[in-house]
Protein backbone atom coordinates (compact mmCIF):
# COMPACT_ATOMS: atom_id res chain seq x y z
CA UNK A 1 0.00 0.00 0.00
CA UNK A 2 2.66 2.49 1.01
CA UNK A 3 4.75 1.47 -1.99
CA UNK A 4 1.81 2.15 -4.24
CA UNK A 5 1.28 5.52 -2.61
CA UNK A 6 4.96 6.45 -2.89
CA UNK A 7 4.75 5.69 -6.58
CA UNK A 8 1.47 7.50 -7.07
CA UNK A 9 2.15 10.61 -4.99
CA UNK A 10 4.86 12.16 -7.16
CA UNK A 11 2.76 11.24 -10.17
CA UNK A 12 -0.18 13.07 -8.66
CA UNK A 13 1.98 16.07 -7.78
CA UNK A 14 3.33 16.34 -11.30
CA UNK A 15 -0.13 15.92 -12.85
CA UNK A 16 -1.57 18.71 -10.74
CA UNK A 17 1.45 20.91 -11.49
CA UNK A 18 0.09 21.20 -15.04
CA UNK A 19 -1.69 24.59 -15.25
CA UNK A 20 -5.00 23.26 -16.56
CA UNK A 21 -5.06 20.48 -13.99
CA UNK A 22 -4.15 22.92 -11.24
CA UNK A 23 -6.95 25.27 -12.24
CA UNK A 24 -9.36 22.35 -12.32
CA UNK A 25 -8.28 21.29 -8.83
CA UNK A 26 -8.61 24.82 -7.43
CA UNK A 27 -12.08 25.10 -8.96
CA UNK A 28 -13.10 21.81 -7.33
CA UNK A 29 -11.63 22.88 -3.98
CA UNK A 30 -13.56 26.16 -3.96
CA UNK A 31 -16.76 24.44 -5.03
CA UNK A 32 -16.19 21.68 -2.45
CA UNK A 33 -16.18 24.14 0.45
CA UNK A 34 -19.13 26.20 -0.78
CA UNK A 35 -21.23 23.18 -1.77
CA UNK A 36 -20.58 21.55 1.59
CA UNK A 37 -21.84 24.56 3.56
CA UNK A 38 -24.89 25.15 1.38
CA UNK A 39 -25.45 21.40 0.96
CA UNK A 40 -25.94 20.88 4.71
CA UNK A 41 -29.13 22.93 4.57
CA UNK A 42 -30.28 21.39 1.28
CA UNK A 43 -30.03 18.08 3.08
CA UNK A 44 -31.77 19.31 6.25
CA UNK A 45 -34.62 20.84 4.30
CA UNK A 46 -34.87 17.94 1.83
CA UNK A 47 -34.51 20.39 -1.04
CA UNK A 48 -32.57 18.01 -3.30
CA UNK A 49 -35.26 18.15 -5.94
CA UNK A 50 -35.45 21.94 -5.72
CA UNK A 51 -31.71 22.15 -6.39
CA UNK A 52 -32.17 19.88 -9.38
CA UNK A 53 -34.88 22.23 -10.59
CA UNK A 54 -32.59 25.22 -10.17
CA UNK A 55 -29.90 23.47 -12.17
CA UNK A 56 -32.28 22.95 -15.07
CA UNK A 57 -33.58 26.50 -14.79
CA UNK A 58 -30.05 27.88 -15.10
CA UNK A 59 -29.59 26.09 -18.40
CA UNK A 60 -31.64 28.47 -20.62
CA UNK A 61 -29.88 31.37 -18.87
CA UNK A 62 -26.54 29.91 -19.92
CA UNK A 63 -27.75 29.48 -23.48
CA UNK A 64 -29.15 33.02 -23.70
CA UNK A 65 -25.95 34.36 -22.15
CA UNK A 66 -23.73 32.54 -24.63
CA UNK A 67 -25.91 33.54 -27.60
CA UNK A 68 -25.79 37.20 -26.57
CA UNK A 69 -22.26 37.53 -25.26
CA UNK A 70 -20.32 34.33 -25.96
CA UNK A 71 -18.33 32.89 -23.06
CA UNK A 72 -18.41 36.23 -21.26
CA UNK A 73 -22.21 36.12 -21.35
CA UNK A 74 -22.44 32.78 -19.56
CA UNK A 75 -22.15 34.11 -16.01
CA UNK A 76 -24.60 37.03 -16.26
CA UNK A 77 -27.09 34.84 -18.13
CA UNK A 78 -26.84 32.09 -15.53
CA UNK A 79 -27.07 34.48 -12.56
CA UNK A 80 -30.18 36.12 -14.02
CA UNK A 81 -31.92 32.82 -14.67
CA UNK A 82 -30.86 31.46 -11.28
CA UNK A 83 -32.23 34.38 -9.28
CA UNK A 84 -35.53 34.36 -11.18
CA UNK A 85 -35.84 30.60 -10.69
CA UNK A 86 -34.97 30.89 -6.99
CA UNK A 87 -37.76 33.43 -6.53
CA UNK A 88 -40.18 31.27 -8.51
CA UNK A 89 -39.40 28.13 -6.51
CA UNK A 90 -39.67 30.00 -3.22
CA UNK A 91 -43.14 31.17 -4.21
CA UNK A 92 -44.08 27.64 -5.31
CA UNK A 93 -42.90 26.20 -2.00
CA UNK A 94 -44.64 28.84 0.07
CA UNK A 95 -46.32 27.67 3.23
CA UNK A 96 -44.58 24.31 3.15
CA UNK A 97 -44.16 22.84 6.62
CA UNK A 98 -47.32 22.56 8.62
CA UNK A 99 -47.89 22.28 12.32
CA UNK A 100 -50.27 23.94 14.64
CA UNK A 101 -48.64 27.18 15.66
CA UNK A 102 -46.91 27.53 12.32
CA UNK A 103 -47.90 26.47 8.87
CA UNK A 104 -51.50 27.44 8.85
CA UNK A 105 -54.21 27.04 6.32
CA UNK A 106 -52.37 27.08 3.04
CA UNK A 107 -49.56 24.77 3.99
CA UNK A 108 -48.45 23.48 0.60
CA UNK A 109 -47.51 19.83 0.60
CA UNK A 110 -44.12 18.66 -0.60
CA UNK A 111 -45.74 16.82 -3.49
CA UNK A 112 -47.61 19.92 -4.66
CA UNK A 113 -44.38 21.89 -4.49
CA UNK A 114 -42.45 19.23 -6.36
CA UNK A 115 -45.10 18.96 -9.07
CA UNK A 116 -44.86 22.71 -9.65
CA UNK A 117 -41.10 22.57 -9.78
CA UNK A 118 -41.17 19.64 -12.20
CA UNK A 119 -43.34 21.66 -14.57
CA UNK A 120 -41.06 24.68 -14.36
CA UNK A 121 -37.81 22.77 -14.70
CA UNK A 122 -38.83 20.70 -17.71
CA UNK A 123 -40.25 23.81 -19.35
CA UNK A 124 -37.10 25.85 -18.82
CA UNK A 125 -34.83 22.99 -19.83
CA UNK A 126 -36.74 22.57 -23.09
CA UNK A 127 -36.52 26.31 -23.66
CA UNK A 128 -32.75 26.05 -23.26
CA UNK A 129 -32.54 23.17 -25.72
CA UNK A 130 -34.66 25.03 -28.30
CA UNK A 131 -32.51 28.13 -27.92
CA UNK A 132 -29.23 26.25 -28.18
CA UNK A 133 -30.37 24.31 -31.25
CA UNK A 134 -30.74 27.59 -33.16
CA UNK A 135 -27.01 28.09 -33.14
CA UNK A 136 -24.76 26.32 -35.64
CA UNK A 137 -22.32 24.55 -33.37
CA UNK A 138 -25.29 23.06 -31.60
CA UNK A 139 -23.91 19.68 -30.57
CA UNK A 140 -20.57 20.80 -29.18
CA UNK A 141 -22.16 23.72 -27.33
CA UNK A 142 -24.83 21.52 -25.84
CA UNK A 143 -22.21 19.05 -24.70
CA UNK A 144 -20.19 21.79 -23.01
CA UNK A 145 -23.19 23.15 -21.18
CA UNK A 146 -24.39 19.74 -20.08
CA UNK A 147 -21.07 18.25 -19.01
CA UNK A 148 -18.94 21.30 -18.28
CA UNK A 149 -15.38 22.09 -19.21
CA UNK A 150 -13.38 21.68 -16.07
CA UNK A 151 -10.05 21.23 -17.90
CA UNK A 152 -10.40 24.56 -19.69
CA UNK A 153 -11.27 26.64 -16.63
CA UNK A 154 -9.40 29.92 -17.06
CA UNK A 155 -8.00 32.04 -14.25
CA UNK A 156 -10.70 34.61 -14.93
CA UNK A 157 -13.35 31.91 -14.58
CA UNK A 158 -11.69 30.76 -11.36
CA UNK A 159 -12.20 34.23 -9.93
CA UNK A 160 -15.82 34.17 -11.05
CA UNK A 161 -16.37 30.80 -9.39
CA UNK A 162 -14.70 32.02 -6.20
CA UNK A 163 -16.68 35.27 -6.07
CA UNK A 164 -20.05 33.60 -6.66
CA UNK A 165 -19.19 30.88 -4.12
CA UNK A 166 -18.26 33.44 -1.48
CA UNK A 167 -21.60 35.20 -1.93
CA UNK A 168 -23.46 31.89 -1.63
CA UNK A 169 -21.53 30.98 1.53
CA UNK A 170 -22.16 34.42 3.02
CA UNK A 171 -25.92 34.17 2.43
CA UNK A 172 -26.10 30.81 4.18
CA UNK A 173 -23.87 31.86 7.07
CA UNK A 174 -25.89 35.03 7.69
CA UNK A 175 -29.14 33.04 7.77
CA UNK A 176 -27.72 29.88 9.38
CA UNK A 177 -29.69 30.16 12.61
CA UNK A 178 -32.95 30.78 10.80
CA UNK A 179 -32.16 27.91 8.38
CA UNK A 180 -31.44 25.48 11.20
CA UNK A 181 -34.51 26.51 13.19
CA UNK A 182 -36.73 26.24 10.10
CA UNK A 183 -35.35 22.84 9.20
CA UNK A 184 -35.84 21.49 12.71
CA UNK A 185 -39.22 22.93 13.67
CA UNK A 186 -41.08 25.02 11.07
CA UNK A 187 -43.99 25.60 13.46
CA UNK A 188 -41.79 26.93 16.27
CA UNK A 189 -39.77 28.90 13.74
CA UNK A 190 -42.81 30.80 12.54
CA UNK A 191 -44.17 31.26 16.05
CA UNK A 192 -40.85 32.84 17.05
CA UNK A 193 -41.46 35.51 14.42
CA UNK A 194 -39.07 34.44 11.67
CA UNK A 195 -40.05 34.94 8.04
CA UNK A 196 -40.32 31.65 6.20
CA UNK A 197 -40.39 33.39 2.84
CA UNK A 198 -37.17 35.32 3.39
CA UNK A 199 -35.40 32.31 4.85
CA UNK A 200 -36.42 30.08 1.94
CA UNK A 201 -35.55 32.73 -0.62
CA UNK A 202 -32.10 33.15 0.93
CA UNK A 203 -31.40 29.41 0.74
CA UNK A 204 -32.76 29.10 -2.80
CA UNK A 205 -30.65 32.03 -3.99
CA UNK A 206 -27.56 30.52 -2.34
CA UNK A 207 -28.24 27.19 -4.06
CA UNK A 208 -28.85 28.96 -7.37
CA UNK A 209 -25.59 30.89 -7.08
CA UNK A 210 -23.67 27.70 -6.38
CA UNK A 211 -25.27 26.08 -9.37
CA UNK A 212 -24.03 29.05 -11.39
CA UNK A 213 -20.56 28.74 -9.89
CA UNK A 214 -20.36 25.03 -10.57
CA UNK A 215 -22.10 24.77 -13.88
CA UNK A 216 -19.27 26.08 -16.07
CA UNK A 217 -16.82 23.63 -14.57
CA UNK A 218 -18.99 20.59 -13.98
CA UNK A 219 -21.91 21.12 -16.31
CA UNK A 220 -25.64 21.25 -15.73
CA UNK A 221 -26.02 17.55 -15.11
CA UNK A 222 -23.13 17.12 -12.69
CA UNK A 223 -23.33 20.16 -10.49
CA UNK A 224 -26.22 18.92 -8.42
CA UNK A 225 -24.12 15.94 -7.35
CA UNK A 226 -21.63 18.06 -5.40
CA UNK A 227 -24.53 19.79 -3.62
CA UNK A 228 -26.29 16.60 -2.59
CA UNK A 229 -23.96 13.60 -2.38
CA UNK A 230 -21.11 14.85 -0.12
CA UNK A 231 -23.45 15.92 2.69
CA UNK A 232 -25.30 12.62 2.39
CA UNK A 233 -21.94 10.89 2.94
CA UNK A 234 -21.14 13.19 5.87
CA UNK A 235 -24.45 12.43 7.57
CA UNK A 236 -23.67 8.73 7.37
CA UNK A 237 -20.26 9.30 8.94
CA UNK A 238 -20.96 11.78 11.73
CA UNK A 239 -23.79 12.70 14.07
CA UNK A 240 -22.28 16.06 14.90
CA UNK A 241 -23.64 19.19 13.30
CA UNK A 242 -20.38 21.11 13.09
CA UNK A 243 -18.51 18.24 11.42
CA UNK A 244 -20.98 17.84 8.54
CA UNK A 245 -19.68 20.61 6.29
CA UNK A 246 -15.94 19.89 6.82
CA UNK A 247 -16.43 16.18 6.11
CA UNK A 248 -18.56 16.94 3.05
CA UNK A 249 -15.88 19.30 1.71
CA UNK A 250 -13.18 16.67 2.17
CA UNK A 251 -15.36 14.08 0.44
CA UNK A 252 -15.78 16.34 -2.60
CA UNK A 253 -12.08 17.13 -2.65
CA UNK A 254 -11.11 13.45 -2.51
CA UNK A 255 -13.58 12.63 -5.28
CA UNK A 256 -12.30 15.63 -7.25
CA UNK A 257 -8.68 14.51 -7.06
CA UNK A 258 -9.63 10.91 -7.85
CA UNK A 259 -11.86 11.92 -10.75
CA UNK A 260 -9.39 14.33 -12.31
CA UNK A 261 -6.51 11.93 -11.89
CA UNK A 262 -8.53 9.01 -13.20
CA UNK A 263 -9.68 10.80 -16.31
CA UNK A 264 -6.16 12.15 -16.93
CA UNK A 265 -4.52 8.73 -16.61
CA UNK A 266 -7.24 7.07 -18.62
CA UNK A 267 -6.97 9.51 -21.49
CA UNK A 268 -3.14 9.31 -21.34
CA UNK A 269 -2.79 5.53 -21.19
CA UNK A 270 -6.04 4.27 -22.63
CA UNK A 271 -6.58 7.04 -25.13
CA UNK A 272 -10.14 7.39 -23.84
CA UNK A 273 -11.21 10.96 -23.19
CA UNK A 274 -13.47 10.32 -20.21
CA UNK A 275 -15.33 13.43 -19.04
CA UNK A 276 -13.57 14.57 -15.85
CA UNK A 277 -16.82 15.98 -14.48
CA UNK A 278 -18.51 12.62 -14.90
CA UNK A 279 -15.49 10.84 -13.37
CA UNK A 280 -15.71 13.12 -10.32
CA UNK A 281 -19.38 12.38 -9.88
CA UNK A 282 -18.71 8.65 -10.24
CA UNK A 283 -16.05 8.92 -7.54
CA UNK A 284 -18.55 10.75 -5.31
CA UNK A 285 -21.16 8.08 -5.83
CA UNK A 286 -18.56 5.39 -5.09
CA UNK A 287 -17.69 7.13 -1.80
CA UNK A 288 -21.39 7.27 -0.97
CA UNK A 289 -21.69 3.56 -1.65
CA UNK A 290 -18.80 2.81 0.68
CA UNK A 291 -20.28 5.05 3.39
CA UNK A 292 -23.67 3.32 3.12
CA UNK A 293 -22.09 -0.14 3.29
CA UNK A 294 -19.97 0.78 6.32
CA UNK A 295 -22.83 2.45 8.18
CA UNK A 296 -25.17 -0.49 7.54
CA UNK A 297 -22.51 -2.90 8.77
CA UNK A 298 -21.88 -0.77 11.86
CA UNK A 299 -25.53 -0.43 12.77
CA UNK A 300 -26.03 -4.21 12.32
CA UNK A 301 -23.10 -4.76 14.64
CA UNK A 302 -24.43 -2.27 17.17
CA UNK A 303 -27.97 -3.61 17.16
CA UNK A 304 -26.66 -7.17 17.49
CA UNK A 305 -24.69 -6.11 20.55
CA UNK A 306 -27.54 -3.98 21.91
CA UNK A 307 -30.01 -6.83 21.51
CA UNK A 308 -27.68 -9.09 23.45
CA UNK A 309 -27.38 -6.63 26.28
CA UNK A 310 -30.70 -4.93 26.82
CA UNK A 311 -32.98 -6.38 24.20
CA UNK A 312 -34.66 -3.60 22.29
CA UNK A 313 -32.55 -0.55 22.79
CA UNK A 314 -34.14 2.81 22.44
CA UNK A 315 -37.04 1.92 20.20
CA UNK A 316 -39.22 2.39 23.29
CA UNK A 317 -38.19 6.03 23.29
CA UNK A 318 -39.07 6.61 19.67
CA UNK A 319 -41.76 9.18 19.03
CA UNK A 320 -44.98 7.55 17.95
CA UNK A 321 -46.65 8.82 14.82
CA UNK A 322 -49.73 10.97 15.07
CA UNK A 323 -51.85 8.12 13.83
CA UNK A 324 -50.42 5.80 16.45
CA UNK A 325 -51.05 8.42 19.11
CA UNK A 326 -54.62 8.85 18.04
CA UNK A 327 -55.15 5.10 17.97
CA UNK A 328 -53.62 4.76 21.42
CA UNK A 329 -55.76 7.55 22.83
CA UNK A 330 -58.83 5.95 21.36
CA UNK A 331 -57.99 2.55 22.73
CA UNK A 332 -57.35 4.05 26.16
CA UNK A 333 -60.50 6.09 26.52
CA UNK A 334 -63.13 4.37 24.44
CA UNK A 335 -65.32 2.01 26.41
CA UNK A 336 -65.80 -1.28 24.60
CA UNK A 337 -68.75 -1.24 22.27
CA UNK A 338 -69.08 2.54 22.13
CA UNK A 339 -69.77 4.36 18.92
CA UNK A 340 -66.73 4.83 16.79
CA UNK A 341 -65.33 8.10 18.01
CA UNK A 342 -62.70 10.57 17.05
CA UNK A 343 -59.86 10.59 19.49
CA UNK A 344 -59.96 14.34 19.22
CA UNK A 345 -63.24 14.77 20.97
CA UNK A 346 -62.75 12.19 23.65
CA UNK A 347 -62.33 13.86 26.89
CA UNK A 348 -61.73 12.33 30.24
CA UNK A 349 -62.43 14.83 32.87
CA UNK A 350 -62.50 15.64 36.50
CA UNK A 351 -65.25 18.20 36.73
CA UNK A 352 -65.22 20.64 39.56
CA UNK A 353 -68.02 20.28 42.05
Amino acid at each position, binding site marked *: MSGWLAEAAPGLASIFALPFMRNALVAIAVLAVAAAIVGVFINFRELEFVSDGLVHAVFPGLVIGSVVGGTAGLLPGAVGAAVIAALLFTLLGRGGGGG*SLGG*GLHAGSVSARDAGIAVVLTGLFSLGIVLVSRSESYVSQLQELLFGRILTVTTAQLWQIAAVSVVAIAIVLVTRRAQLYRAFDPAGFE*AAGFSAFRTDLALNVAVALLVVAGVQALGVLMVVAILVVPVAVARLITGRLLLLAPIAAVVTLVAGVAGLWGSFEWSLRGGVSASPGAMIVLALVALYGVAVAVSVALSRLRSARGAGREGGGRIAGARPTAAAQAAAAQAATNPPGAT*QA*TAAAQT*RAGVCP
Partner: protein
Amino acid sequence: MSDRGANAGAKASESAREQHPALELAGAAFGYAGETRVEDLTLRVPAGAAVALIGPNGSGKSTLLRGILGLADLTAGSVGVLGTSPEQARRSVGTLPQSDARDTSLPITVRTVVSMGLYREAGAFGRIGRAGREAIRRAIELVGLAPFAGRRFGELSGGQQQRAILARALVSNPRLLLLDEPFNGLDRENREMLLELVARQRDEGRTVIVSTHDLEIAKAACTHVLLLASGHEPGEPGHPAAFGTLTEALTLDAVQHAFHDSTVELDQHTVTTTREVDAP
Protein backbone atom coordinates in the same frame (compact mmCIF):
# COMPACT_ATOMS: atom_id res chain seq x y z
CA MET B 1 -53.06 19.35 43.63
CA SER B 2 -56.55 20.86 43.56
CA ASP B 3 -55.94 23.66 46.07
CA ARG B 4 -52.91 24.86 44.14
CA GLY B 5 -55.33 26.16 41.52
CA ALA B 6 -57.04 28.31 44.12
CA ASN B 7 -53.73 29.68 45.45
CA ALA B 8 -52.50 30.61 42.04
CA GLY B 9 -55.86 32.14 41.26
CA ALA B 10 -55.46 34.49 44.21
CA LYS B 11 -51.91 35.30 43.17
CA ALA B 12 -53.03 35.93 39.61
CA SER B 13 -55.67 38.44 40.65
CA GLU B 14 -53.10 40.27 42.78
CA SER B 15 -50.68 40.72 39.91
CA ALA B 16 -53.47 41.53 37.46
CA ARG B 17 -54.08 44.79 39.28
CA GLU B 18 -50.58 46.04 38.58
CA GLN B 19 -50.12 44.67 35.06
CA HIS B 20 -51.91 44.71 31.73
CA PRO B 21 -54.08 41.70 31.15
CA ALA B 22 -52.10 39.00 29.37
CA LEU B 23 -54.77 38.70 26.74
CA GLU B 24 -57.71 40.93 25.95
CA LEU B 25 -60.16 40.03 23.20
CA ALA B 26 -63.16 42.18 22.28
CA GLY B 27 -65.45 40.63 19.70
CA ALA B 28 -62.38 39.13 18.14
CA ALA B 29 -62.47 36.65 15.26
CA PHE B 30 -59.49 34.94 13.66
CA GLY B 31 -59.01 33.15 10.39
CA TYR B 32 -57.04 32.92 7.19
CA ALA B 33 -57.48 34.64 3.84
CA GLY B 34 -60.73 36.26 4.92
CA GLU B 35 -62.23 32.98 6.13
CA THR B 36 -63.06 33.14 9.84
CA ARG B 37 -62.22 30.00 11.84
CA VAL B 38 -63.14 31.14 15.35
CA GLU B 39 -65.31 34.10 16.35
CA ASP B 40 -67.19 35.95 19.10
CA LEU B 41 -64.24 36.01 21.47
CA THR B 42 -64.63 38.55 24.23
CA LEU B 43 -62.54 37.84 27.28
CA ARG B 44 -59.78 39.07 29.58
CA VAL B 45 -57.05 36.76 30.76
CA PRO B 46 -55.42 38.30 33.83
CA ALA B 47 -51.65 38.20 34.02
CA GLY B 48 -50.50 35.16 35.95
CA ALA B 49 -53.50 33.05 35.02
CA ALA B 50 -53.25 29.61 33.51
CA VAL B 51 -55.91 29.03 30.89
CA ALA B 52 -56.91 25.64 29.56
CA LEU B 53 -58.14 25.95 26.00
CA ILE B 54 -60.48 23.03 25.44
CA GLY B 55 -62.64 22.08 22.51
CA PRO B 56 -63.17 19.53 19.77
CA ASN B 57 -61.18 19.57 16.54
CA GLY B 58 -62.33 22.36 14.27
CA SER B 59 -63.35 24.61 17.15
CA GLY B 60 -60.44 26.94 16.38
CA LYS B 61 -58.01 26.25 19.24
CA SER B 62 -54.93 26.41 17.04
CA THR B 63 -56.27 29.38 15.08
CA LEU B 64 -56.79 31.29 18.33
CA LEU B 65 -53.25 30.46 19.47
CA ARG B 66 -51.91 31.60 16.11
CA GLY B 67 -53.99 34.74 16.38
CA ILE B 68 -52.40 35.53 19.74
CA LEU B 69 -49.03 35.25 17.97
CA GLY B 70 -50.17 37.44 15.09
CA LEU B 71 -49.91 34.53 12.65
CA ALA B 72 -53.63 34.25 11.94
CA ASP B 73 -55.58 37.21 10.58
CA LEU B 74 -57.83 39.19 12.88
CA THR B 75 -61.08 39.21 10.86
CA ALA B 76 -63.16 41.15 13.40
CA GLY B 77 -62.88 42.91 16.74
CA SER B 78 -59.66 43.67 18.56
CA VAL B 79 -56.86 41.75 20.24
CA GLY B 80 -54.37 42.93 22.86
CA VAL B 81 -51.51 40.75 24.06
CA LEU B 82 -49.54 41.86 27.14
CA GLY B 83 -50.98 45.33 26.61
CA THR B 84 -49.80 45.65 23.01
CA SER B 85 -50.28 44.12 19.56
CA PRO B 86 -49.58 40.41 18.96
CA GLU B 87 -46.58 41.26 16.73
CA GLN B 88 -45.08 43.56 19.36
CA ALA B 89 -45.72 41.07 22.14
CA ARG B 90 -44.20 38.11 20.31
CA ARG B 91 -40.75 38.52 21.83
CA SER B 92 -42.27 38.11 25.28
CA VAL B 93 -44.17 34.98 24.27
CA GLY B 94 -42.75 31.47 24.51
CA THR B 95 -44.34 28.69 22.47
CA LEU B 96 -44.49 24.94 22.52
CA PRO B 97 -45.94 23.98 19.12
CA GLN B 98 -47.40 20.58 18.32
CA SER B 99 -44.72 18.00 17.95
CA ASP B 100 -45.64 16.53 14.56
CA ALA B 101 -43.72 18.99 12.37
CA ARG B 102 -40.35 18.52 14.08
CA ASP B 103 -37.55 16.83 12.17
CA THR B 104 -36.05 14.59 14.83
CA SER B 105 -33.52 13.13 12.41
CA LEU B 106 -31.36 16.27 12.42
CA PRO B 107 -28.02 15.85 14.19
CA ILE B 108 -28.55 18.57 16.77
CA THR B 109 -28.14 18.39 20.52
CA VAL B 110 -30.64 19.32 23.20
CA ARG B 111 -28.44 22.31 23.98
CA THR B 112 -28.69 23.54 20.38
CA VAL B 113 -32.45 23.10 20.38
CA VAL B 114 -32.79 25.12 23.58
CA SER B 115 -30.46 27.82 22.22
CA MET B 116 -32.94 28.34 19.35
CA GLY B 117 -35.07 30.16 21.93
CA LEU B 118 -32.42 32.90 21.85
CA TYR B 119 -31.95 33.04 18.05
CA ARG B 120 -34.50 35.79 17.62
CA GLU B 121 -32.74 38.12 20.07
CA ALA B 122 -29.25 37.18 18.95
CA GLY B 123 -29.95 37.87 15.28
CA ALA B 124 -27.65 36.71 12.52
CA PHE B 125 -24.27 37.46 14.05
CA GLY B 126 -24.96 38.29 17.68
CA ARG B 127 -23.07 35.91 19.87
CA ILE B 128 -24.99 33.93 22.42
CA GLY B 129 -22.72 35.20 25.17
CA ARG B 130 -22.06 34.06 28.69
CA ALA B 131 -25.46 35.28 29.89
CA GLY B 132 -27.13 33.38 27.06
CA ARG B 133 -25.22 30.19 27.77
CA GLU B 134 -26.10 30.50 31.42
CA ALA B 135 -29.78 30.97 30.53
CA ILE B 136 -29.62 27.87 28.32
CA ARG B 137 -28.01 25.84 31.11
CA ARG B 138 -30.61 26.97 33.63
CA ALA B 139 -33.53 26.25 31.30
CA ILE B 140 -32.22 22.74 30.62
CA GLU B 141 -31.73 22.16 34.34
CA LEU B 142 -35.20 23.49 35.10
CA VAL B 143 -36.86 20.86 32.90
CA GLY B 144 -34.66 18.14 34.38
CA LEU B 145 -32.63 17.43 31.25
CA ALA B 146 -29.19 18.44 32.51
CA PRO B 147 -27.76 14.93 31.98
CA PHE B 148 -29.04 15.00 28.39
CA ALA B 149 -27.82 18.46 27.34
CA GLY B 150 -25.23 17.03 24.94
CA ARG B 151 -27.47 14.25 23.62
CA ARG B 152 -29.01 14.28 20.18
CA PHE B 153 -32.58 15.58 20.38
CA GLY B 154 -33.89 12.67 18.33
CA GLU B 155 -32.53 10.17 20.86
CA LEU B 156 -34.77 11.50 23.64
CA SER B 157 -38.14 10.00 24.55
CA GLY B 158 -41.30 11.86 23.58
CA GLY B 159 -41.70 13.31 27.06
CA GLN B 160 -38.09 14.43 27.20
CA GLN B 161 -38.45 16.07 23.79
CA GLN B 162 -41.47 18.04 25.00
CA ARG B 163 -39.49 19.15 28.05
CA ALA B 164 -36.61 20.26 25.81
CA ILE B 165 -39.02 22.32 23.69
CA LEU B 166 -40.47 23.79 26.90
CA ALA B 167 -36.92 24.75 27.89
CA ARG B 168 -36.54 26.43 24.47
CA ALA B 169 -39.72 28.42 25.21
CA LEU B 170 -38.50 29.38 28.68
CA VAL B 171 -34.93 30.33 27.83
CA SER B 172 -35.88 33.86 26.75
CA ASN B 173 -37.83 34.37 30.01
CA PRO B 174 -41.25 34.97 28.39
CA ARG B 175 -44.23 36.53 30.19
CA LEU B 176 -46.75 34.46 28.26
CA LEU B 177 -46.45 30.76 27.43
CA LEU B 178 -48.54 29.20 24.64
CA LEU B 179 -48.61 25.41 24.70
CA ASP B 180 -50.37 23.61 21.84
CA GLU B 181 -51.40 20.07 22.78
CA PRO B 182 -48.23 19.54 24.80
CA PHE B 183 -49.50 16.32 26.37
CA ASN B 184 -50.32 14.50 23.15
CA GLY B 185 -48.78 11.07 23.04
CA LEU B 186 -47.23 11.28 26.51
CA ASP B 187 -47.63 8.51 29.05
CA ARG B 188 -48.95 9.28 32.50
CA GLU B 189 -45.55 9.71 34.12
CA ASN B 190 -44.30 12.17 31.50
CA ARG B 191 -47.59 13.99 31.54
CA GLU B 192 -47.39 14.46 35.31
CA MET B 193 -43.86 15.78 34.99
CA LEU B 194 -44.82 18.27 32.27
CA LEU B 195 -47.91 19.33 34.26
CA GLU B 196 -45.72 19.97 37.26
CA LEU B 197 -43.42 22.16 35.14
CA VAL B 198 -46.33 24.10 33.68
CA ALA B 199 -47.80 24.63 37.16
CA ARG B 200 -44.44 25.93 38.37
CA GLN B 201 -44.29 28.46 35.51
CA ARG B 202 -47.70 29.73 36.53
CA ASP B 203 -46.59 29.99 40.15
CA GLU B 204 -43.69 32.16 39.01
CA GLY B 205 -46.14 34.64 37.57
CA ARG B 206 -46.06 33.70 33.90
CA THR B 207 -49.36 33.53 32.10
CA VAL B 208 -49.95 30.13 30.53
CA ILE B 209 -52.41 29.25 27.78
CA VAL B 210 -52.50 25.55 27.03
CA SER B 211 -54.71 23.84 24.45
CA THR B 212 -55.66 20.30 25.31
CA HIS B 213 -58.29 17.62 24.88
CA ASP B 214 -57.90 16.54 28.46
CA LEU B 215 -60.06 18.16 31.12
CA GLU B 216 -57.91 16.54 33.80
CA ILE B 217 -55.08 18.85 32.79
CA ALA B 218 -57.27 21.88 33.21
CA LYS B 219 -58.08 20.82 36.73
CA ALA B 220 -54.53 19.97 37.65
CA ALA B 221 -52.67 23.01 36.39
CA CYS B 222 -55.04 25.77 35.32
CA THR B 223 -56.92 28.61 36.97
CA HIS B 224 -59.20 29.36 34.04
CA VAL B 225 -60.90 27.47 31.25
CA LEU B 226 -61.93 28.58 27.78
CA LEU B 227 -64.26 26.04 26.24
CA LEU B 228 -64.58 26.35 22.47
CA ALA B 229 -67.40 24.75 20.51
CA SER B 230 -67.19 23.99 16.82
CA GLY B 231 -69.73 25.47 14.41
CA HIS B 232 -73.00 23.64 13.85
CA GLU B 233 -72.13 22.87 10.26
CA PRO B 234 -68.70 21.68 9.17
CA GLY B 235 -66.73 24.70 7.96
CA GLU B 236 -68.55 27.12 10.24
CA PRO B 237 -66.30 28.99 12.65
CA GLY B 238 -65.92 27.86 16.24
CA HIS B 239 -67.10 29.99 19.14
CA PRO B 240 -66.66 30.06 22.90
CA ALA B 241 -68.99 27.88 24.96
CA ALA B 242 -67.73 29.19 28.28
CA PHE B 243 -64.92 31.18 29.80
CA GLY B 244 -64.09 31.72 33.43
CA THR B 245 -62.40 30.21 36.44
CA LEU B 246 -62.44 26.45 36.69
CA THR B 247 -65.60 26.32 38.78
CA GLU B 248 -67.44 28.88 36.68
CA ALA B 249 -66.67 27.49 33.27
CA LEU B 250 -66.17 23.78 33.66
CA THR B 251 -69.78 22.78 34.09
CA LEU B 252 -71.55 19.82 32.56
CA ASP B 253 -73.73 22.14 30.46
CA ALA B 254 -70.75 24.00 29.06
CA VAL B 255 -68.86 20.81 28.28
CA GLN B 256 -71.96 19.44 26.57
CA HIS B 257 -72.28 22.63 24.55
CA ALA B 258 -68.63 22.56 23.51
CA PHE B 259 -68.88 18.96 22.37
CA HIS B 260 -72.44 19.49 21.25
CA ASP B 261 -72.87 16.38 19.17
CA SER B 262 -71.55 14.18 21.93
CA THR B 263 -72.79 11.85 24.55
CA VAL B 264 -71.57 12.96 27.93
CA GLU B 265 -71.35 10.61 30.87
CA LEU B 266 -71.01 11.90 34.36
CA ASP B 267 -70.10 10.14 37.56
CA GLN B 268 -68.53 11.42 40.74
CA HIS B 269 -65.20 12.40 39.20
CA THR B 270 -65.29 11.75 35.52
CA VAL B 271 -66.94 13.18 32.49
CA THR B 272 -66.46 11.24 29.32
CA THR B 273 -67.58 12.80 26.09
CA THR B 274 -67.60 10.66 23.03
CA ARG B 275 -68.12 12.50 19.82
CA GLU B 276 -69.91 10.36 17.35
CA VAL B 277 -68.49 10.45 13.89
CA ASP B 278 -71.77 9.80 12.10
CA ALA B 279 -73.85 12.08 14.30
CA PRO B 280 -76.96 13.30 12.47
